[in-house]
């Protein structure tokens, strides 16, 4: 009994010390749910785009997510956080979408295409009619790099896109674009966030293939 007690104390001591002193505990913030963004994101006119997600561990998984934080008047930065299992699972289908937006103390948590915060905001750009006669959103010169940061590529949102997005917001439904261009199945997201969609990350290996690859690599 005495030895068992000592052993338990040792385990508690180890876990306590490892938690306090582990390098992974420093610098990586924890995000319980979307509400936690308020504490992490300080800048105004900010949008947070989920760009990667990963789980480590065997029996007890630890979930990490990588976000691109774009603030209207600050530098673009990438943020890695530890998240809860529920939050990570919930957002598996939200890669490439903006999960959090903050504008003048107003916060939104509905998954929307990246840049939805800025579309229609005259501080950042204006609606223009292109050669085809479509009304499209164009960022001001100061924000000319935003389409690249937002992962739009050559995509230019038009009035139809904007109206459908507003309608989804009013219904509180996630929006993936009129033709589902955004999100894990969307071609714009797949083209502009290639790291997440790399072939080797996507393929699921069965035990036989794993063993064959192991023997090829090692013998």
């Amino acid at each position, binding site marked *: 009994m005495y030895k068992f007690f000592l052993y338990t104390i*040792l385990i508690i001591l180890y876990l306590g010390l490892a938690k306090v002193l582990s390098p992974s505990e420093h610098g990586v913030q924890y995000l319980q749910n979307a509400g936690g963004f308020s504490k992490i994101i300080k800048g105004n006119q900010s949008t947070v785009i989920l760009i990667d997600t990963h789980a480590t561990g065997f029996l007890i998984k630890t979930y990490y997510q990588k976000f691109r934080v774009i603030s209207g008047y600050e530098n673009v930065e990438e943020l890695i956080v530890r998240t809860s299992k529920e939050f990570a699972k919930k957002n598996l289908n939200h890669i490439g979408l903006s999960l959090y937006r903050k504008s003048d103390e107003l916060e939104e948590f509905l998954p929307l295409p990246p840049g939805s915060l800025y579309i229609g905001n005259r501080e950042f750009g204006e609606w223009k009619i292109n050669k085809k006669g479509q009304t499209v959103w164009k960022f001001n010169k100061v924000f000319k790099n935003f389409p690249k940061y937002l992962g739009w590529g050559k995509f230019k949102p038009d009035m139809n896109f904007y109206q459908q997005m507003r309608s989804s917001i009013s219904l509180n439904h996630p929006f993936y674009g009129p033709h589902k261009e955004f999100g894990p199945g969307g071609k714009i997201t797949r083209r502009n966030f290639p790291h997440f969609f790399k072939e080797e990350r996507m393929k699921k290996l069965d035990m036989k293939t794993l063993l064959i690859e192991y023997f090829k690599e090692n013998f």
Partner: protein
Amino acid sequence: MAEIFDRLVIRILLAAFVCLMIYLYRYAHVIFYPSVKRQVLKKIHPAENPADTLHLFSRLVGISIIFSSITFNESSGFFLSLFHFAVWGTIAIVLYLLSLFIIESIVFYNFDYTDEILKRKNMSYAFISFCHAIVIAYLTKTVMMEAENSLVILLVLWLFMLVIVGFSVKYFTFISKLTFNRLLIQKNLSLCFSYGGFSLGAGFIIASCFDQEHYDITIYCIQVLLKTVLSLIIFPLFKKGLVKIFPVYLGDERGEVGQIDTDMQSLGYGFYEGCIFISAAILTTMIVNRIQFGTIYPFF
């Protein structure tokens, strides 16, 4: 050809210099064991007292282990490399003998070297001392290599190592069925094999805890401490597991009717415990040091 011959001459000269350092060590040994002055400084008669021979020459093995960690950098000049070896060799000798003196003061606090070795010729005492010499040498070597020619870091790590070793030797009473003091008085050989296995195992574990990359001394010491605590958690699992896999029958009943010689039975138990301790320790180092969990960064 001339260059090859020159290098051979350098090697021979350096070998002679190492011998000179060991000669100096012989005198340093007397500082901590003044009672052996007569034996050490005159001709040694191994046949007269095998326990004393084992005790003395275990130190020689130990100092050789430590010297093997010091490198000669001939490219910086022959005399400078000799000077470097002399400085670090002297530091090694001092630290090694001081460590041995402290650890033996802890383990043999009830025993006196003169009584046990010189008068009683206690082989059990000598063998335990031999194991201490090897283990301390191995650990001092590890610490010297980790210090990377920094005297301050060496002193910090040496003190830290000494604290861990000091605690670890006390752990024996928790995990062995053999009573240390009583059996040592009886010159019981089973104790020395069991304790030998334990101390060598503890040495492996502690050395493996120190063997890691370091950029910051504080973080390094914390990592060593964490690994040591982790080893304390893993080691009993292996020990219990090995005992379950290889259950032994102490054979008290058979011993009583005279079918097994009681001394041999006891010796066998010493071997058994010693081997279990070493195996469990080596396996513990594998679990503590050889598992790569990776990081999130290759993925992100």
